């Protein structure tokens, strides 16, 4: 009965789950269904979208026109993916995504976000000093490339379409998908052709 001590996260998570189950608010089947949703949220999905866009001009046109529908063509949809907008990197403009107020991302194509994306430091700094933040992450953008930072404040979920690296003209979609990284689709890295 003593409630002076503060519960550890592990104890609190177990307490809430057991109470929900015992009181009948949720069942194991619900948790299994939630787990199935979790398993479907992979950034590798986004890599497939990017590889398809690089390989298929018609798909790319549909993707830029209606990101949600084009991702759904490949079977990628779900929570935090109600309205997906694709933003295209160009030689003149580099895009990067943040959520300053919490940590929203396009789960169906980017998966659950990594620690750095959720860190208060990234959230606070990238809208204020984007060039410095990208540089610290290993991406030194030339001064003649404008930076555009997209803050995920409403229900739009952004996916960055990175520049296709040179020397990949004859690569298959699978080969291309294999070099696309999560960071490149959040916009803080370039895609590099690996041999």
């Amino acid at each position, binding site marked *: 009965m003593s409630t002076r001590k503060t519960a550890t996260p592990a104890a609190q998570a177990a307490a809430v789950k057991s109470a929900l189950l015992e009181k009948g608010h949720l069942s194991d089947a619900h948790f299994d269904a939630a787990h199935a949703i979790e398993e479907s949220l992979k950034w590798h999905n986004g890599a497939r979208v990017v590889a398809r866009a690089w390989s298929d001009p018609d798909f790319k046109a549909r993707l830029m026109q209606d990101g949600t529908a084009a991702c759904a063509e490949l079977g990628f949809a779900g929570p935090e993916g109600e309205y997906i907008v694709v933003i295209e990197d160009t030689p003149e403009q580099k895009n990067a995504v943040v959520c300053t*107020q919490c940590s929203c991302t396009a789960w169906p194509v980017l998966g659950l976000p990594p620690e750095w994306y959720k860190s208060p430091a990234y959230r606070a700094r990238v809208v204020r000093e984007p060039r410095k933040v990208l540089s610290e992450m290993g991406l030194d953008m030339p001064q003649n490339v404008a930076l555009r930072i997209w803050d995920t404040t409403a229900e739009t979920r952004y996916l960055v379409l990175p520049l296709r690296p040179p020397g990949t003209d004859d690569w298959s979609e699978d080969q291309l998908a294999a070099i696309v990284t999560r960071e490149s689709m959040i916009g803080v890295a370039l895609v590099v052709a690996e041999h």
Partner: protein
Amino acid sequence: MDGIHDLGGMAGFGLFEVEENEPTFHEPWEETAFLTNIASVAMLRAYNTDEYRHSIERMPIDEYLPARYYERTLIGLTTLLIEKGLLDKADLDRRAGASVRVSQPAVANTDDGHTQSTAPRFCVGDRVRVRNMHPPGHTRVPRYVRGHSGTVLHVAPPFRFPDASAHGLPVRRECTYHVGFESRELWSESAEAADTVVVDLWESYLEESP
């Protein structure tokens, strides 16, 4: 609320680490917290995502920054399940063998928006200014753009107005706008001239730029 969660532009943060081959969850309780939230929103429909975001914003203010991401998830969902009457704090404390952590009570917004239509009021290319709003409850207009002017780059379809939806006020939908702000408009001469920040803003947050 102008809370600690509204981090955009705040100074004092340093380097952050990018983990190689990062697992989705770092400890088992993190996955439990995530799954419990998904099940509570999508299956139990105990609360909506606007209420969920606000439950985290209401965390004790000096606990927010040190907390891990899924710790915030856990504190938020625990708060809501208790507030909605589905769970009982004393029972949870007993189960946990210690006091479970919860957020502070909500202060409701009184303003449920300025737009009565789902048809867009602004078009791509329009100059708009962000209203000087300071709602006491949930809002998604960051402090760092308030009072500043930008250009509409894209009109998104109508979505639930979060300032109302997070507080059980009548649900209305209105368009959101991707508004591009020049970095120097936001941060003055300290920013790079060519850079922009795009913020996705509900129509009620905006007025015509003077």
